């Protein structure tokens, strides 16, 4: 398939393919991660990413095939199970979210490493270096990889858009939603499962660190700029897309520069800028508010504005 030069902005084919894939992941991760962060589950993406390892190892052990589809399927099962476990822990025990996430993350990752080591020791073909799966191979994205990423990302964003009312209601006040007859726990599960899906699909393309970061950083940055849900999710998506695009292009300029970390650094840069510069929530704005004119003494007649 020849790409007309004019469409390519003068960029090489591989750069375009990688940019498309990473931008898709960035956009969807930002949107899906937005609700997750609001729900106080920012690290669920990290748990999902690490749990993928045990799923990948298990899939290889069970089927003996090291094909991407098989490994991803196994990874997906494990990732969804891990975040589902987090939801259950939150619901049925008194364990705090951060402790639960740390436990699920490290236990599943440890299990994965043990499985892989065992397989390598027994000479199971294809088992050596399986843990590199988590690192991704961004520069080696093919057009079909990018297409898959695009489709999954679009589907994830569509899910959020269609179910926004339900998702927001449950994220904000699950007790009210449940009392009104909504299956709050199930909707919660779908939300975290979406994160798990994004993470697993994004893993081979972008690596665990990148995907986890894109699920958390853009929403936090976006929160500095808006007080409304839809703008927040939109801004998070945009930051994800832009960080992805810019990161890919920048990493293509210097040799031996891995794309994933550059994208993460850019997203983090956006966050830093947002934290400082954003109106009303930013550091500068708050500093100015403190130094501003003193408020008038309240009138005794009108009383408190309650």
């Amino acid at each position, binding site marked *: 398939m020849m790409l007309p030069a004019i469409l390519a902005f003068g960029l090489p084919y591989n750069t375009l393919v990688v940019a498309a894939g990473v931008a898709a992941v960035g956009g969807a991760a930002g949107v899906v991660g937005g609700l997750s962060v*609001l729900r*106080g589950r920012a690290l669920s993406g990290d748990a999902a990413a690490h749990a993928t390892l045990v799923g990948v190892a298990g899939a290889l052990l069970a089927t003996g095939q090291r094909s991407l589809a098989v490994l991803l399927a196994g990874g997906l099962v494990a990732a969804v199970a891990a975040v589902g476990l987090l939801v259950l822990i939150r619901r049925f025990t008194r364990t705090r979210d951060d402790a639960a996430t740390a436990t699920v993350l490290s236990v599943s990752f440890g299990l994965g490493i043990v499985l892989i080591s065992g397989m390598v020791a027994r000479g199971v073909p294809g088992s050596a270096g399986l843990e590199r799966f988590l690192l991704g191979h961004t520069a080696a994205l093919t057009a079909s990889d990018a297409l898959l990423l695009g489709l999954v990302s679009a589907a994830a964003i569509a899910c959020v858009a*269609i*179910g926004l*009312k*339900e998702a*927001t*209601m449950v*994220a*904000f*006040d699950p*007790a*009210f*939603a*449940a*009392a*009104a*007859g*909504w299956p709050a726990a199930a909707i919660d599960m779908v939300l975290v499962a979406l994160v798990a899906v994004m993470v697993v699909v994004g893993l081979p393309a972008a690596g665990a660190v990148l995907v986890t970061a894109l699920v958390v950083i853009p929403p936090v940055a976006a*929160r500095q700029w*808006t*007080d*409304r*849900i839809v703008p*927040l999710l939109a801004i998070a998506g945009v930051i994800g897309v832009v960080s992805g695009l810019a990161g890919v292009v920048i990493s293509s300029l210097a040799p031996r520069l891995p794309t994933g970390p550059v994208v993460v650094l850019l997203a983090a840069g956006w966050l830093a800028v947002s934290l400082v510069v954003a109106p009303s929530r930013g550091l500068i704005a708050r500093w100015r508010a403190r130094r501003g004119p003193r408020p008038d003494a309240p009138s005794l007649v009108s*009383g*408190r*504005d*309650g």
Partner: protein
Amino acid sequence: MNLRPATESPASSSTGSIPLLEWHDLTVAYGRRPVLWNVDLEIASPCLFGIIGPNGAGKSTLLKASLGLVPVTGGSVRFWGEPLSRVRRRLAYVPQRETVDWDFPVSVMDVVLMGAASQLGWFRRAGRRERELAGDCLDRVGLTDLAGRQIGRLSGGQQQRVFLARALAREADIYFLDEPMAGVDAGSQEQIFAILAGLRDAGKLVVAVHHDLQTAARWFDAAALIDMRLVAAGPTAEVLTPENLEQTYAGRRGILDELGRAVARGVRTP
């Protein structure tokens, strides 16, 4: 123990008609630890009903169990004789304020719209009808001017009124409120009470967990005194007697003792 199985508001008779709300031997336990024990009580007609008791007595649990938010270990709850699953549409819940993250990026109107849209089907959005309803509810609680404000930038009383407006937007027949006056200044409390009284006057049942004995006597038509078991239930003055209060708040005597006596005498404290 002073048990009153059925309660009637002074204004109506109830013989033969199905009670609005009936707790039948309701027991809730977390593992081996009981939180509510054999609560048996009927509310026959619309009123402002208070659930009073010391901390940890199971008051919130009573609400949550009624709404299916915590599992019921024994007994049952019936609304108009029906189980919860059939009548959810006619119920509304106002949870405690601290259960929500007030930094959530939604405005006052967004929250009330959540209430209006909670009756809609899957994936259906709030339309013009819901917006008008939400606007009305905001009006009734006096927050129309703050419709666009992010909820974290409200005072305690305003936040409570947002929650109330959200519940109103469900256009329910029974309202459950968990500590609606907690952390709210006196002026707002009167405002909120006026809204609740309006609901009662419109024929709705309002069940509220309340912590302040003083105002309880003034505001609620009837009440139940709960300390894991039902200590007493009936018209408020008959329930909040010094004997009952001493029995329930045992160990916290002294000021409550005095308060109880003052309440029984109908003395108004400023």
